[in-house]
């Protein structure tokens, strides 16, 4: 370019940069880079049917008719405490929810702690107490654990990894591949509260909201839903990568098209404002106490009514529907009546320049 004059006949353009040789933050964003990492690095050597199902929890049959759901989740969040929760509550609810999303009843959790040298013991006590409260609410027990300490500077205070185990009722089949054309898509409440609350706690917003993280155990909500319908086909908690990523996964697993109605997607004004300021889309912001349910349309009113009677489902609404095409795609009908694609996030979500 340096010796050339502007010319439209010889356009000039940079070479690509792939991030295939080093891990970068985008590999943990819940978007396409993470999906590729799982597909390229983890699946080939570890493949088995439970893993390849690609759901929040792996389901295995351990004896005739007895099926277990197992899920594991490592929790790293900065700051450790934020409005509405902390890393302890997150570590319990995250895993409880992942187990519950295949329709299982979560029973027991394990917890591993990676502690940074110099961490205040009273911070750890506070976190563990928070875990106890969350476990009580979810009606699960933490039955084993592990503790490792790393040198100062080798961890950000405290990381927690939890594994959960739950029991599946016979005949229950809930998973990302079960969405069917005609199904309705329900969201249990407003999108993006957790992600924006944590951004604010991190001091990254530059302005104040009164938002709290939505962290909550959703197993009781799910049990209530399942008590009124056997047409709950898919459940998913839209955590990292947000609702857009979760719905894209479902569309791909079930090979259906999912069409959202922009006007019906619940977003709190503070979340909408923060997203406008930063150039984010609430559909990609993390949630920790929300679920997406894909349900048979004939049962949708009954399921919604039941959800509205519960603490974490009182704002549940239908936000879209499942159609035959385009297979594997998530579409959005805009407020203006046009249609556009909602894709997986490419990598790390970055605020736009202006």
């Amino acid at each position, binding site marked *: 370019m340096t010796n050339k004059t502007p010319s439209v006949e010889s356009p000039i353009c940079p070479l690509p940069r792939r991030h295939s040789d080093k891990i970068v933050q985008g590999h943990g964003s819940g978007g396409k880079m993470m999906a590729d990492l799982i597909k390229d690095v983890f699946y080939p050597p570890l493949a088995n049917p439970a893993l390849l199902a690609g759901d929040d929890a792996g389901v295995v049959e351990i004896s005739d008719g007895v099926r277990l759901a197992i899920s594991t989740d490592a929790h790293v969040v900065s700051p450790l405490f934020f409005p509405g929760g902390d890393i302890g509550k997150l570590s319990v609810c995250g895993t409880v929810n992942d187990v519950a999303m295949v329709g299982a009843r979560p029973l027991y959790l394990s917890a591993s702690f990676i502690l940074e040298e110099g961490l205040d013991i009273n911070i750890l006590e506070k976190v563990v107490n928070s875990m106890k409260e969350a476990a009580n609410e979810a009606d699960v027990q933490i039955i084993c654990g592990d503790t490792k300490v790393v040198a100062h500077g080798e961890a950000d205070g405290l990381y927690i990894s939890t594994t959960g185990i739950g029991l599946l009722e016979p005949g229950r089949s809930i998973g990302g591949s079960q969405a069917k054309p005609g199904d309705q898509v329900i969201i249990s409440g407003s999108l993006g509260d957790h992600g924006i609350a944590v951004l604010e706690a991190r001091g990254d917003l530059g302005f104040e909201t009164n938002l709290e993280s939505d962290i909550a155990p959703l197993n009781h909500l799910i049990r209530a839903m399942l008590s009124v319908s056997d047409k709950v086909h898919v459940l998913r908690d839209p955590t990292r990568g947000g609702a857009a990523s979760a719905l894209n996964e479902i569309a791909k697993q079930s090979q259906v098209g999912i069409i959202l109605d922009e006007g019906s997607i619940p977003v709190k004004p503070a979340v909408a404002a923060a997203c406008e300021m930063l150039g984010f889309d609430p559909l990609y912001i993390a949630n920790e106490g929300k679920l997406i349910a894909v349900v048979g349309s004939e049962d949708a009113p009954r399921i919604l009514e039941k959800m509205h009677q519960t603490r974490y489902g009182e704002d549940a609404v239908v936000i879209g529907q499942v159609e035959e095409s385009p297979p594997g795609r998530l579409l959005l009908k805009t407020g203006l009546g*046009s249609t556009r694609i909602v894709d997986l996030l490419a990598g790390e979500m970055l*605020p736009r320049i202006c």
Partner: protein
Amino acid sequence: MKYLTEYRDADLVHGLINKIKEITTQHWTLMEICGGQTHSIIKNGLDQLLPDQIELVHGPGCPVCVTPLELIDKALAIASKPDVIFTSYGDMLRVPGSQADLFSVRARGGDIRVVYSPLDAVKLAQENPDKEVVFFAIGFETTAPANVMSVLQADQLGLDNFSILVSHVRVPQAIEAILSSPHNRVQGFLAAGHVCAVMGYWEYIPLAKKYNIPMTITGFEPLDIAQGILTTVESLEAGTCEVKNAYIRAVSKKGNQNAQAVINKVFEECDRKWRGIGLIPGSGWRLRPLYTKYDAEKRFQVETIQAEESPLCISGLVLQGQKKPDQCEAFGTLCTPENPLGATMVSDEGACAAYYRYRTQTPGSQEKGL
């Protein structure tokens, strides 16, 4: 949201679209200058609502897209140095340089931080007196006031560990480069509202007259853009070539004179290379000699870094409105946001990225667009 949802009102937008349909008698090619407008048009599917005769082409107003390769290489060289905290607006991290991008430098241990304002970088410099803090000052006229304020504030605080890597570009000179090309097919411009909020629109009046072309100062919400298109088509149909302001809630003819004064205090005009386009005379800003000590290029002695770009994609044509993103063979196959061949695929404001995010179909599908 107050003062936002009003400008997304579907009935009002459809009312303007209907007016556009009523008055359009022939094919017109309009360019929206700003990447923010491109993003809004594609995100809201506004172009799907327009009559077929109105063609929107996407302009070079994405600062991330047009920052030249060698500036990225300079940024990478500085960010790789020990004792440097390199700060940047978020989406610059993904832009590929010759050998790496800022993400890769961060993965190798470089201290690279996303800031939301250049004044955050000044604060970092205050808090880290033993580190060199560098801010990647890119952008059009819109970001210039905040970027020069960081220099003035560092000066006032007497900071000697703060500097900026400047890659500022200007819109009127880019418009002139497009209009003076023998291949130009743009017949009307939607000028960038935020740029004009700072600079006013007095600079566009002689341009419109010289090239006999209507320009409308246009905002970013669907209603703003529909109004901008309607106003431009009205001028085209009437055969007039005025500059009209369809963003009066933010823009005046003279603009924000205080902002212009601080820009002029710190920056002076210079020639600037645009990625994908080439050198456009007088199209940039650089630090005035008085503020040279805040020039990161000089401080870190990276002035001599040169870079050759590879002729692999058509982003230059896209940036000049001569091709649409999906007219590129690599679009959506070899070139995706995770693996961008060109800068227009990198930023959310890049036309290719906007098309990819909102328009691509599943791989293998014959259909393009919706």
